[in-house]
């Protein structure tokens, strides 16, 4: 901790001349180098386990245990991927994950948009109470609801049914989604509503035709956050789903890995398959994701 403090100091001292004169003194350049060095080390630490995972997903056991960890395999063994994709239920888990994630995200965004509109733009007495319920919902551990939910879904015949997890994801994601949407809705100018109403527009029409399209950017941001949560969720699936054909990737992968307990290449390939969609989404939409995560937490 001490050394990091020292660094902030060094960095601080170098910042002034650089920003004031626009050029770098020797001290400034040295400070920058140290800064970049440390930031790079941190970046390498964040990426290293993943690079190692990618490498061992392309090796066989002999190469994994005999070659240095970061050595490339003698030949790239894509057959690890082919093997795990064709020999188990990975494809089924994959489809389940996509269905569950998409349905819950659409449901959450839709319900949250309607609720946020009423919570921010409409006038009613219970508004603070309802808003409070949603915000306290952020702090509630899902584990505290697990037993009654299990009993409830059992009574409804939803145990071992994808709806049990879709409903749970939607309910538990509503608070964070509403929180992301809130700031955006508060910032919408009142004039839009007034103009629409003077023109004889109903509330429904105004919301669906005017306001909702205006919020598309924040809806995308919230959708991505939801997607990451739902794609990775473990406890609900693990508790509510028992058939192998209904499991999502996270739980499916967990069971699948057990079968391959000694074949590291196959395990690596399984894990890579389970994280690739999110990594791809991140590469394509990283700015949105970064924004979304920041927005989702800072506005509290």
């Amino acid at each position, binding site marked *: 901790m001490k050394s*990091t*403090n020292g660094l*902030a100091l060094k*960095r*601080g*001292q170098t*910042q*002034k001349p650089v920003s004031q004169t626009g050029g770098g003194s020797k001290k400034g350049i040295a400070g920058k180098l140290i*800064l970049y060095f440390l*930031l790079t080390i*941190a*970046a390498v630490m964040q*990426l290293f*386990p*993943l690079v*190692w995972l990618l490498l061992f997903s392309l090796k066989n056991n002999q190469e994994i245990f005999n070659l240095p*960890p970061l050595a490339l395999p003698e030949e790239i063994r894509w057959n690890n991927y082919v093997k795990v994709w064709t020999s188990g239920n990975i494809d089924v888990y994959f489809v389940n994950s996509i269905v569950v994630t998409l349905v819950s995200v659409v449901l959450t965004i839709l*319900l*949250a948009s*309607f*609720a946020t*509109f*009423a919570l921010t733009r*409409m*006038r*009613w007495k219970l508004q603070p109470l309802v808003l409070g*319920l*949603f915000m306290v*919902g952020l*702090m*509630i*551990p899902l*584990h*505290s*609801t*697990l*037993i*009654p*939910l299990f009993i409830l879904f059992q009574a409804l015949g939803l145990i071992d049914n994808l709806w049990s997890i879709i409903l749970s994801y939607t*309910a*538990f994601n509503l608070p964070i989604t509403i929180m992301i949407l809130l700031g955006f809705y508060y910032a919408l100018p009142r004039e839009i509503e007034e103009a629409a*109403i003077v023109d004889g527009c109903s*509330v429904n029409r105004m919301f669906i035709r005017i306001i909702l399209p205006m919020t598309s950017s924040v809806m995308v941001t919230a959708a991505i956050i939801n997607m990451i949560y739902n794609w*990775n969720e*473990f*406890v609900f699936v693990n508790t509510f789903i028992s058939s192998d054909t209904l499991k999502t990737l*996270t*739980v499916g*992968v*967990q069971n699948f890995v057990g079968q391959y307990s000694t074949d*590291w290449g196959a*395990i690596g390939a399984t*894990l890579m398959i389970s*994280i690739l969609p999110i990594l791809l989404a991140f590469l394509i939409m990283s700015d949105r994701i*970064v924004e979304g*995560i*920041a927005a989702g*937490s*800072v506005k*509290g």
Partner: protein
Amino acid sequence: MNKVMSNKLVLTLYVLPALCLLLGIVYVPIVYTGIYGLMEWNGISDMKFIGLDNYQKLMSDSSFWNSAKHSMYFAILSTASLLPYLLVAVLLSGNIRGVNIFRKIYLIPMLLSSVAIAQLWLKVYHPTSGILNTFLESLGVAKTPAWLADPNLVLGALFIPILWQYAGFYILIYYAALKNIPQSIVEAARIDGANAWQIAFRIKIPLISEVIKVTVVLAVVGSLKYFDLIYIMTDGGPNQASEVMASYMYHKAFRTFDFGYGSAVGFFLLLICLAATWLIRKLTASKEKIQYS
């Protein structure tokens, strides 16, 4: 205008679906957790009302307190780790090139499922073939530790992947907050002769104290309900050395089918989370008023 914007029918249609789901899947179950906690019940036979017996048992259950201690340990470590994250964010918020790449790279582990992270780190920690012990052996360490099987090492070993997973998340939050500070305030301080060190610690960090408060709550509550990674990597073992409150609840309910006692643990977990949130908000709120009023 007012009349249109407080249309009762529209209001009901807009709020009710979301509210019903929230009440039905989050709040009503909590009430039931409280009720089940007063019962002796294995999930199949009839419930038997036993009053506060489960809670009394909880108070003297050393396994539970052990798990609570481990949860607290994670909460303290997570909160402490916020300081280096804040410093990295301060560094990033200076005018340097490539900031975007760094903060994106830091964030990547946050996107992965706990199953993938757990399996990956199980391989990192593997006693004979893991990358960590392979590295230690290459340095000449003769007796490499069995990280997850050693009761003295397991909690620390579990905390590293947690640190790894959430680093980017907190750095990003701080970075976004620091970037939101109006440049004019920083400029004014600079003109008044403050050096960058003073600007960071006297101006920037106090200005984002609201956000810091939120992250402390997130870190503490997140740690108290931490479950997935521990459940997958050690299942609370060896010999309960890494059991936390959520995993203890899960084991009681879904392994030994003691639904009544499991519910009591679950309800207690809820109370602790809410109490921790309230306490942190309370403690930090008063401090701030002194600074700014």
